[in-house]
């Protein structure tokens, strides 16, 4: 029998007995950042494809949620900091090795761009809208002229935002559960799925809802594949990663992960979407709500379980 313990009574707050440095703020940010990335990606994509007439909810209506969600996310990130008064140090440097650094800069780009994007559509969404100051009219004209440039910026930065939320975690080799490169693509797929869910919710035409329901179904399929793939990879890897996988395969996170993420967040909405495709009437709020719930649970579970996974020690 081998017993290993700290006998000098180390009990550093938030670190011992097991890492507990990140709480609700980080997973909440990962979720809202992911949803906004998904929304902005589809808005930019369908605008660039020239389909903004066929998909008005994706291009004009849903993006209104993105700045709100991004600001909530930024607020959560700020609350997470322990040394809040020095937060501006993030923007004094760009460190390419640190995903958190370029993620912070990505937010700095995509948040204002998302606000501008919404502002260029506001007169179409609300006929009779008048800007309080005349220079805003000039700015609006300017940005409407360069809308496709905005769309390209949004397309690129929304993918970076969606994938970075996963890469942020996968860069930590000290936490074996996070230390898998599949986490970036998995979170990106979840971003696109939750973004599509929001568009489904606000879409007014049946055709648009149907389109995003199909996209969502595809993303759910990809997510399921990547989750299986992730566990296969862990199981075939080193002892620490086998232990990380076992947190979900019989360990303390098994129930919550398979019930809330896999069943309620992926399998059930996929089933409802298939039923809908076959002509059944399913209230869209149920399907979208389940997808969003699954997305938020995925972030929370990965962040918390990752802190519980560690090296043999």
């Amino acid at each position, binding site marked *: 029998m081998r017993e290993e313990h700290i006998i000098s009574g180390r009990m550093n707050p938030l670190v011992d007995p097991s890492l507990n440095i990140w709480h609700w703020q980080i997973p909440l940010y990962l979720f809202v950042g992911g949803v906004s990335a998904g929304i902005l990606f589809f808005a930019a994509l369908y605008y660039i494809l020239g389909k903004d007439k066929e998909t008005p909810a994706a291009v004009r209506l849903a993006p209104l949620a993105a700045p709100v969600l991004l600001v909530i996310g930024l607020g959560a990130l700020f609350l997470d900091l322990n040394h809040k008064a*020095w937060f501006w140090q993030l923007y004094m440097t760009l460190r390419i090795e640190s995903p958190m650094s370029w993620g912070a800069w990505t937010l700095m780009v995509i948040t204002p761009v998302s606000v501008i994007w919404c502002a260029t559509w506001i007169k179409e969404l609300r006929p009779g809208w008048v800007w309080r100051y005349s220079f805003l009219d000039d700015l609006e004209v300017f940005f409407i002229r360069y809308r496709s440039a905005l769309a390209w910026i949004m397309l690129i930065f929304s993918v970076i935002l969606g994938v970075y939320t996963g890469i942020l975690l996968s860069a930590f080799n000290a936490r074996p559960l996070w230390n898998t490169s599949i986490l970036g693509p998995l979170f990106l797929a979840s971003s696109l799925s939750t973004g599509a869910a929001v568009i489904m919710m606000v879409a007014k035409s049946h055709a648009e809802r149907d389109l995003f329901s199909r996209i969502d179904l595809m993303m759910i399929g990809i997510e399921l594949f990547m989750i299986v793939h992730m566990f296969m990879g862990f199981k075939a890897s080193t002892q620490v990663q086998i232990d990380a996988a076992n947190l979900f395969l019989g360990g303390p996170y098994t129930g919550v992960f398979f019930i809330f993420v896999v069943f309620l967040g992926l399998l059930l909405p996929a089933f409802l979407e298939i039923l809908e495709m076959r002509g059944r009437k399913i209230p869209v709020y149920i399907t979208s709500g389940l997808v969003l719930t699954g997305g938020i649970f995925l972030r929370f579970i990965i962040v918390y379980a990752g802190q519980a996974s560690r*090296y043999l020690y």
Partner: protein
Amino acid sequence: MRFAMAVDTRKCVGCSDCVVACQTENDVPIGYCRDWIVEVNDGTYPQLEMEIRSERCNHCTNSPCVRCCPTGASHYSDGGIVLVTPHKCIGCGACIASCPYDARYPHPKGYVDKCTFCLHRVKEGLPPACVAVCPTKCLTFGDTDDPRSEISLLLKKRKFKRLIPEAGTNPNLYFLI
């Protein structure tokens, strides 16, 4: 110059003197510590084996904490010592999550704090506080780039291990076994 520390697990008795010396020297807040003692008991009675290790930050050559720091507050200082600049640290906790040794903690004032190998003492030619007080002289601090330093000679003579080298951190704490 490459500062490192050797811990003789055959000499360490686990008295925790190094822990207290560090807390006093570095004004470590109450309830926190930058170094700690790990006791490993292996086997079943009467075939028992015990190993005692005085542990702290490994001042890794390839530090995940320096790599993930978004502001550059975590950095390499003289002789590869890993330090945190408090007025650059935003307290995001990334470095704490990135450390496989759990050697860092958030200081109550907000920034992240950790072992400094007592760089302020080393600059004056003094050994780190933990090394200075060790009653069994089990701790050796020095420059491993200098082949004639005490630590280099010790590492040539004795068998040693490092903790979690498979994490790819290239740690600079050597445990003599």
